[in-house]
């Protein structure tokens, strides 16, 4: 599916993988995660701690959200990601059984287990699909934080939410090749916008705007 493909990801980089359906984006992600072996070629210097969130979280498992996250934290030998569950707005889901979750809620569980333990390589397959606006904004902030401490983030993203993360590099998978997409440079003067909104929603909006690369004071 992929041939003559090359990708160099430095610590702290965020790579957005785009491309039409069926061109090999998920295959590329699984190669990077070590789930597939390349027939030819090699993947070198893969970080030891890998977080992987599949496109569809396998919710057909007989656990509550809390029990699942507890088991996975033990498997990874890390602490249960309590802060992450709060930031992703899923604390109210902890007592629910995995098969009872909606698609978006199940997706949050997949993200929480992948983000636990400060992964050096974070592989996210369509991480924003099905998430509510607040969780999307928060996930962008979390991705930026992972990159800021030297982690590598690679994500396929049809929604384009990842582009709000500072320093993200877009790669397009097409015809079995990986090409760096030309960044869109907009020569646009800065302006100040005053927004009035309920106080309870201020923090979420501020987080979302920061995640989109705007300056918020």
């Amino acid at each position, binding site marked *: 599916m992929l041939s003559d493909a090359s990708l160099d990801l430095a610590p702290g980089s965020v790579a957005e993988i785009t491309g039409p359906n069926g061109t090999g984006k998920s295959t590329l992600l699984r190669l990077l*995660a*070590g789930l597939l072996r390349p027939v030819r070629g090699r993947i070198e210097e893969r970080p030891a701690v890998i977080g992987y969130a599949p496109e569809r979280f396998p919710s057909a*498992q007989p656990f509550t959200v809390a029990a699942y996250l507890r088991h*996975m934290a033990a498997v990874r030998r890390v602490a249960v990601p309590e802060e992450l569950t709060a930031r992703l707005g899923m604390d109210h889901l902890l007592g629910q059984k995995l098969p009872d979750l909606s698609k978006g809620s199940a997706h949050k569980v997949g993200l929480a287990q992948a983000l636990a333990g400060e992964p050096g390589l974070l*592989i996210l397959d369509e991480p924003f699909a099905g998430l509510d606006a607040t969780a999307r904004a928060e996930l962008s902030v979390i991705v930026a934080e992972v990159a800021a401490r030297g982690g590598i983030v690679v994500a396929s993203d049809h929604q384009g939410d990842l582009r709000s993360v500072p320093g993200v590099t877009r790669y397009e998978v097409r015809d079995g090749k990986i090409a760096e997409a030309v960044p869109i440079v907009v020569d646009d003067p800065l302006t100040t916008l005053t927004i009035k909104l309920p106080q309870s929603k201020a923090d979420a909006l501020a987080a979302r705007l920061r995640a989109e690369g705007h300056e918020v004071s």
Partner: protein
Amino acid sequence: MIPLVTFRLSGYVRSHRIFQPVLGLLAVLSIIYATGVPAGGELPSYSDSAGILMLVFAWAARGLLDNEPDEQRLIAITAVGRRRELVAGLLAALLLTGALALVAVVFPLFVGFAETPGGADLGYGAGLHLLAVLAGTALGALTSRPVLASPAASAAVLVGGYMAILLLSSAGPWASVPVLDWMNAAHHHELPDRLGVIVASALAWSAAGLAGYAAVRRVRG
């Protein structure tokens, strides 16, 4: 690795799929021990139990290995690495089948045997069940979803594979896992004399089966 073994076993038990092999185990034990075993018949009964229960052990191992969704297996591989994930799955399957075998060895001491067998017969009986655990787990692993994706094909190969083992084992101790050989030996009071070749053959076939499973998993994930 232990937390992953615990996770696999916990998921299997919570899914209630453990009832399938437990019911099979109880059915086999009921048939073998329903009429009671007179003094001196303990070891032949143990050998029959081990030979028949190998199919139940294989079914249990396959059920445990297939219990988690494929995507969860991928998550586990990224969490602990490919080799540890594979070993953890097999270890969980061996613990499950080992627990079933323990029930099979202890059960007749209370409801089947007219007299408690001596230490030697008890040891031989436990040893034969251990061989059945190893061979059954290997057969179950070779018919699990990463190897055979189709549930129908998997079930057919599992049952057909067990029958093939029985048929081939009549040709000699090295032709397959020597199930009929250990039954014959136990019934004719020859087990101590033939134990070496029986153990060696069963271990070799089990190791070959597990190695084959590992080889397929290396390619298919």
